[in-house]
Structure formats: structure tokens, C-alpha cells
């Protein structure tokens, strides 16, 4: 990310999730797009208010699962028929039913790893620094009991004075400016 300067956005703090959801819904209706909610636990209604309904984690997981399945099954087949054929009680070299179990386990293994690391990658994590951590009230609240709405400066509608006034209409506990 290129180094930025100036204002990242305006952060409004709410005491309860209902006020946050209401404010977000209204802001979305009023044409705000570059905004984000920050909550100490998942608030589905906030995601709906942000019009964020789908994500790519299931797709990443599916691709991972299929790769794991293909990788292990072909490895087993190659080992048992070409690389190191063994006669085990007269069973065929390509005894695919026996290959299912490790292939099944690897399907789950790769799918699980893809789900976790795919989720982190899609979220842009790890990201140990973020401008929001500069906000004085974010640290005490965002991971404990406060609910935040951030209008980002990148939104075309953003104007520091106007946006601040706009956020005040939702009666938040506070509105602070966040610097990069």
C-alpha cells in the first residue's frame, strides 16, 4: 500500500449494535459507499446494511478441497501402480477403494487450510498496522463493547466538516477523525 497522509476517515462510536445498524442503513441509503463497521463480535445486520452478502471463502475452500483430493488420489495411484507396485494379498495394483480413505482425509485437510488461510488472505490479514488503531477510543472499545461506523475519506461524498455533521445526526457517543 502506498504511504498516505491526511485523513483516513471519520469514526463514529455507538454504545449498542442497534444504533450502529440503523446509522449504517441510513448512510447507505444516503449514498455512502466507502464505509465500514467495526464490532466486537459478528453483527450480521451490519453486513446487510453495508450490502455485503457474499464472499469468496466457499469458492477458495472448494478449490482447495478438489486440489487435495486430486493430489492424494493421483499420488496413491502413481505409487501403487508405477513407482512401487506391491502385491498385497493378490489385490489389483490400482485398488482404488483402498485409496479413498487417504484421499478423503487430504480433501478435508486442504479444504480446511484453504478456508482458514483463504479467509485471512481475502481479509488482507495479517496487517499489524492500520490507521484505525490511531483512534484513541478504538483500542478500548472495538474488541470489547463498542460499535463503530467509519466513513472513509476515499468516498467521493466525503468532506470532513459535512461528514462530521452528518454522523452527529445519528447521536453517536463520539465522532473522531482518524489520521493515517
Amino acid at each position, binding site marked *: 500500500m502506498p504511504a498516505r497522509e491526511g485523513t483516513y476517515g471519520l469514526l463514529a462510536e455507538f454504545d449498542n449494535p442497534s*444504533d450502529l445498524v440503523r446509522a449504517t442503513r441510513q448512510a447507505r441509503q444516503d449514498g455512502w459507499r466507502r464505509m465500514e463497521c467495526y*464490532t*466486537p463480535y459478528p453483527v450480521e445486520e451490519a453486513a446487510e446494511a453495508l450490502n455485503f452478502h457474499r464472499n469468496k471463502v*466457499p469458492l477458495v*475452500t472448494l478449490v482447495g478441497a478438489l486440489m487435495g483430493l486430486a493430489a492424494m488420489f493421483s499420488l496413491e495411484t502413481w505409487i501403487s501402480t508405477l513407482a*512401487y507396485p*506391491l502385491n498385497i494379498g493378490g489385490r489389483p495394483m490400482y485398488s482404488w477403494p483402498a485409496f479413498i480413505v487417504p484421499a*478423503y*482425509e487430504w480433501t478435508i485437510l486442504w479444504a480446511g487450510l484453504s478456508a482458514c488461510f483463504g479467509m485471512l488472505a481475502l481479509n488482507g490479514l495479517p496487517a499489524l498496522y492500520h490507521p484505525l488503531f490511531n483512534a484513541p477510543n478504538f483500542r478500548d472499545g472495538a474488541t*470489547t463493547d463498542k460499535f463503530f461506523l467509519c466513513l472513509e475519506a476515499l468516498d467521493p461524498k466525503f468532506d470532513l466538516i459535512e461528514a462530521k455533521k452528518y454522523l452527529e445526526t445519528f447521536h453517536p457517543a463520539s465522532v473522531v477523525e482518524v489520521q493515517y
Partner: protein
Amino acid sequence: MAVELKDNPKLDPATGEYRVIGPGQTFRSVTEKISRIVLTPHTPLGWFALFGVAGAVATMLLVAVTWLFLVGVGIWAITQPVAWGFAIINFVWWIGIGHAGTLISAILLLFKQGWRNSINRFAEAMTIFAVVCAGMFPLIHVGRPWLGYWLLPLPYTMTVWPQFRSPLLWDVFAVSTYATISVVFWYMGMIPDFGTLRDRSESKIAQYVYGILSVGWRGSTRHWMRYETASLLLAGLATPLVLSVHTVISFDFAVAVLPGWHTTIFPPYFVAGAIYSGFAMVLTLAIPLRKFYHLEALVTERHIDNMGKVMLATGFIVAYGYGMEAFMAWYSASHWETFMFWNRMFGPMGWSYWVLVTCNLAIPLTTLWFRKLRTNIAYMFFLSIVVNTGMWFERFVIVVTSLYRDFLPSSWGTYRATKWDYMTYVGTLGLFTALFMLFVRFLPMIPMNEIRMMLPGAKIGPKITPKAAAKAGD
């Protein structure tokens, strides 16, 4: 009943059940309560005492394993005909204990059982530490553990590859996948809580460590939604995984043409037994923990009660398994099967079968019917120990009494564990406890973000702040 309701604030008047979370908790109070255990600079003396004892017991494992590596598996009681002894019994027992953790974290999540939220983190930790103990046994049992990597399909210079038609190799993949996915699930679940610990800790070191562990979690809604999807997917993946792991372990036995092992009932019966013993272990851990750390408001009688119900159900599946084994021994009209079963009950090792019946069936399945007993903390603690003992004996019975009477009477033998067997087993109990103590001290043992979701404050309503209401009135 009505009187009881009025008198007991722990009961929810709407349902008559115990509350999942005690009354009067807020986002901040639960966060404080849970994070303080980790962030306090003062470690309780009792923690040091228990950690010291557990560490001392774990040292026995170190001694036993060192001697084993120097001398070989001959120091154990395994020989012909009982070639599988304590190592396999303990392996199956530990893995089984681990399964309840996955059941709580994955299957109960899919079934939207909110009550699981308080106990899932330490149940998952229990899973991981149990798998650590379990995984060690096959590795040290192979005789030359330094060649353990031969189990993996790696391109060696001698171009030897594993044999994929053996359940023992399937085990390698099942258990390694299980360990990996359990760790991933556990760690992913802790990321938001690491964020909380980072933000609440006052020491610089803790801020750095938890900050890095939290990968910069900031609670963004888009992040949360992807996170929730990933959690659900992992739960959906862990569910067939946990069933497959114990199924594969039961294949280790069931695929062998040995009376007492060669049965199709083994996979479901092993899985149910695993969950049965695992819930018992969760109780063994949860009851002292909630008392010691004053978590009675978060791990309530409701949890103990529900776990008792799960144990009752799985206990009956296990009972069905025992019954079917006996029935099939008779119905098969196989001389070997019939003899094996008669000998299992009344032979020289018959006592172990009756210990198992007493501990797994007679005591729990008669008493778990009563809510009075299910919510009696002392009784449930006692019962959890009884069931754990019973389940250990189940594996002992399956392994030893199927092996020690071979087909030919001239090959009959017996099994008497040596002191090294006992030291290894008891040592893993110490290792498990020591690891668990470290977990309790340094990691959030109750998932704060999931508890917050269940509080009344998390309800979304058309709520308007008092200021706004006043304004609207104007």
C-alpha cells in the same frame, strides 16, 4: 417446580431450564472476566502447584520414553500373542477423548447449539493436547521412532513408498489431518480474542505477542462475515473428519481377521465411545476450572446438564455396541467368536470386562436420567472419572482379551503391563495436564466474541438512544 423457579435465579423462567449464561452479564463484564485470567501479572499459587505436579508426572514420561529409545519396545509387556498393549489402548483412548472437543466445536456449531460457546474453546484445547498424547504412542510403538518419517510418502533415495492398502497407513493420514485441522480451527477461533487481549493488556510484551497472534484483527464487518463463513466451513469439514478418524482407527482392528475385532459394528461404536469419553473428559476439566476461576456464570449448570444428556445418549449407543458384539458372537455360530466372548466375560481377564460394564453402563446409564444428579456438580465430576476409567477399560478389553487367547491353545498367553507401560501412560496424563495448565494461563479459555453474541445486549432492535428519543419528542 414453580417454587423452585422462583427461588432459583439460575433458572430461566421462560423455559424452566438452567440459564446458559448467568444473569446480569454485559459485554464488558464477560470480557473483563475472561481476559483478566490471562492478563493478570499474578499467577495463582494453586496454578503453580498443579503445574508443578503435572510437570513432575510428565517427567516420568520423559524417563520412560528415553529408556524405551535406548533399549527398545521389549521393556513393555508386548509379546506374542498380545503384540498390541498399552500403546494402542492409550492411543485409542486419547484420540477418543479428543473427539468431544471437535464435536462441541463443530457439530454443535452446525446445529446452532448456543450453549456450546462457553465450553468450546477449552474443549478444542483438550482435543489438541489429547491428540498430542495420542499421536505419540504409535510413533514410539514403531520400535525405531527415528524412522517414523517412513510412514509418509516422501521421495527417499531408496525409492521405497508406503503401502496404501493398510488401515495403519490410513491412520497416519487421518490422525495427521485431524491434528492439523484441530489446530487451525482452534487458532482461527482465537484470532478475535487475541485482538481483545492485545487491546486490553498493559504490558508491552503481551501487546506485541498477542498483537502478532491476532494478525491485526480489527473487527471489521466484512472480515467478520468471511470469518463466520470460514468457521462454518471448517465446522462442516471437521464433522465428517471426526467421524472418519475414529472409523479409520476402528478399521485398524476391524480389518484384521481376529475374533473380537472383525466386526462391522466397530466404526459407529468406536465413534460413540469416543464422544462418550470425550464429554466425560470435558466435565473432568470444566468442573474444577469453573470453580477455580469463578466462571460459574459462564459455564453454568446448563452446560453440565446438557453434557450429561449427551453422555446418556452416546452411552446407550455404546451399550448397543456391547450388546451387538455379544449377540453376534452367539448368532454367528462361529466357534472362535463364541469362545472369545465367553472368555472375555468369564476368562482369566474377565474382571476387566466387568469393570467396563460397571463404569460405562451400570453407573452412568442408570443415574444420568435424573436432572438432580446431572446438575449435581460433585456427582458429575465423580461420574466423569468413572466413565473415563470405563472407556480406558473398553480399549483394554478390546485389545487384550481378543489377543491373549490365540486360535491354537498352545499359543495362549497373558498380558501383564510392566512399570514402563504404567509410567508412559501416567506420564501422558501429566503431559496433558501440564499443557492444559499452560493453555489456561496464556490463552483465552472461553471465546469472548462468541459469548458476546449470546448476551441480551446483542439483540438488534429499533432501539433509539435516549438523546435521540428526546429529540424525536420535540
